[in-house]
């Protein structure tokens, strides 16, 4: 990497010492083909035009930017009135309003167009919460591709409605019973399928992890999030935000929004990982506070692992953040000190989830609620530390609201005890697919 290169344009296979291609030789030809095809497409105006048309007419881009003042009041806390602090503004980048309900569609449409260019006819995908599986099933329906989605059996229970959605869209959903029966095992199974069927199958990897070129390519398909948000917030507030916050599972929504601000020194970047039941309990998915560099699923990155290098199971109330590794670009930004990563517990995330529902009428995905909880923390920290925007303006936080929470209603109902006595357990079991 040359010193003059913008951070936003750093490309694979390595981000600093992270990334690479730690996969079986059988997959290398397909990865090379993908890299070549992606490079060709990236230089082809027709590809960009077609993707832009889909974003506009199908996904509903640009997604809006929504200021949430009633929510932000809780980030200011009690000290606001007593001190001279100008307060905290929180603005949400509404990826939850995309078709299929999350940012995942950005990447999937880009990869599906590549699949057509490569002449392959079958796509496979892994999914945790089901968001990426739904997005892939959607694109496959749109573009007439055979689609198989691997999903940990545990996750098919937690996200039964998304399983039904994928099947409605014509995809085959395969519950994975190996290992911990969650996202990492779904990826293992997808990789086994890919090794077997690579000659006519493309693996639509759902995040900025995996072997090169996936981390770079998936970032490119999501950079539109940050590019739109940067223009929108400049127009709305007249300046860049003081901080950008996002949740980090594999890290695609975070990298998508961070990327446009990587070279803006005045903008702090915060990624919020799943702290689960607390990092001290060992039941979490906080790779930066509880992991160490290692190799999983084709890339070297921070990883939850034991002293023998065996992957340690992750834990989170949110299936989409329940992953033991993280995209290599995040490990690079972490070690560079360009972005900060902090854990948010299940309980903090669920409190922020309910707060956004109550104050703004927006039901966020539980994944995104980790970023909301992080924003509350950052706001309170700024007020306590007397930090403001330039010229005494309010401290401004841009949050990527990466997905909507329809899929999480059953989990929330159970968490908060929202159903009437008697019907509660039976109804919840039906909703969660355990009936």
């Amino acid at each position, binding site marked *: 990497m040359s010193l003059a290169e913008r951070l936003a344009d750093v490309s694979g296979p390595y981000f600093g*010492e992270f990334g690479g291609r730690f996969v079986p030789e059988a997959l290398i030809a397909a990865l090379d083909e993908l890299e070549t095809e992606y490079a060709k497409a990236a230089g082809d105006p027709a590809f960009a035009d077609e993707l832009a048309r889909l974003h506009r007419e199908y996904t509903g881009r640009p997604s809006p930017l929504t200021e949430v003042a009633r929510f932000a009041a809780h980030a200011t806390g009690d000290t606001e009135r007593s001190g001279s602090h100008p307060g905290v503004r929180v603005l949400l980048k509404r990826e939850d309003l995309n078709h299929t309900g999350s940012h995942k569609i950005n990447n999937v449409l880009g990869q599906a167009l590549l699949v057509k260019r490569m002449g392959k006819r079958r796509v496979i995908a892994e999914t945790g919460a089901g968001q990426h599986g739904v997005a892939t099933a959607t694109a496959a329906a749109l573009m007439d591709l055979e689609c198989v989605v691997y999903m940990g059996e545990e996750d098919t229970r937690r996200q039964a409605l998304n399983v039904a959605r994928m099947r409605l869209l014509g995809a085959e959903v395969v519950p994975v019973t190996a290992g911990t029966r969650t996202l990492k095992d779904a990826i293992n199974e997808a990789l086994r399928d890919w090794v077997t069927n690579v000659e006519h199958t493309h693996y639509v990897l759902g995040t900025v992890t995996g072997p090169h070129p996936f981390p770079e390519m998936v970032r490119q398909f999501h950079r539109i999030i940050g590019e739109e948000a940067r223009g929108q917030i400049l127009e709305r507030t007249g300046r860049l935000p003081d901080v950008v916050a996002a949740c980090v599972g594999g890290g695609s929504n975070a990298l998508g929004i961070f990327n446009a601000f990587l070279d803006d020194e005045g903008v702090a970047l915060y990624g919020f990982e799943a702290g689960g039941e607390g990092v001290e309990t060992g039941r979490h998915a906080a790779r930066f506070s509880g992991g160490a560099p290692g190799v999983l699923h084709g890339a070297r990155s921070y990883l939850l692992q034991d002293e023998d290098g065996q992957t340690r199971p992750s834990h989170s109330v949110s299936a989409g953040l329940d992953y033991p590794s993280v995209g290599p670009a995040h490990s690079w930004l972490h070690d560079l000190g360009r972005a900060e990563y902090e854990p948010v517990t299940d309980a903090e995330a669920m409190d922020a989830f309910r707060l956004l529902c109550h104050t703004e009428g927006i039901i966020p995905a539980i994944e995104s609620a980790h970023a909301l909880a992080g924003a509350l923390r950052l706001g309170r920290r700024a007020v306590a530390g007397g930090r403001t925007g330039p010229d005494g303006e309010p401290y401004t936080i841009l949050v990527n609201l990466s997905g909507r929470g329809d899929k999480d209603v059953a989990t929330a109902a159970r968490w908060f005890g929202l159903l009437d006595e008697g019907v509660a357990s039976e109804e919840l079991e039906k909703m969660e697919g355990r009936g």
Partner: protein
Amino acid sequence: MAATSSTTGPGTTAEPGGVRATAPRAGELIARLRTEENRPALVGYLPVGFPDVERSIEALLTLTDNGVDIVELGIPYSDPVMDGLVIQQAAQAALDAGVRVAHVFEAVRRIREHAPHVAVLPMTYWNPVLRYGVADFARDLAAAGGSGLITPDLIPDEAAAWIAASDEHDLDRVFLVAPSSTPRRLALTAQASRGFVYAASLMGVTGERASVGDRAEQLVSDTRTAGAQNVCVGIGVSTGAQAAQVGRWADGVIVGSALVRPLLGDDPWDVRLRNLAEVTRDLASGVRSARAAHGAH
């Protein structure tokens, strides 16, 4: 940016030399079998630690007692993406029973004491070695009498640290090729490998198949053309008849799932060992009959 070393501190100290002094190199062993016995090598896989460390060593010695020339000693790993159900099941059971990476060195030592003529190459996914420290792992493997490593998810492009460590400790390094490998990658892999090249007979994960992939023979031929001295064929080879068929044109026949399968199930352990011995002998007679009526390739 800071490039930090991935090596850990000094691990278990081991006596240099020892059994290592006589550890056969896989390449020399294969060459000797070719010239003296006109047959391919039989490479047999079992994971250490299944069903527990002690019994896994008994099973490994059963392989060497019944005609296996090279032991591919599996290190159980939590995320084995190149393995099918049979090996996944055994590896997971080994992990559940508490196997540790360091047990592999004990198993290597015990096999080498029992069968000094046999070459032992651990098969490992890369993260356990990274975590142990690549240089430390190479040192301890050499000290235990291991001949080298088979690395299914490490391609030569990512293997600089392993190539340096295996050179320093004079270890074999077995990389894989697949039917999808381009001529350029066959050449790269053949050049980086030492001992033999592992040719995947078909596109897929480990497991028994009704027939060996029809692209395997061409792949072996292409890999030789690309510069490899020895090419062994694995994935999907499970019977003596298949071993005989593959052995006509391959330098070694690699069998995994078919050897693990007899060890699964609830039969008494001695019954399972007898079944393993029987499968091994069938494969051993397969490689011995491979070229009887065909002459050397």
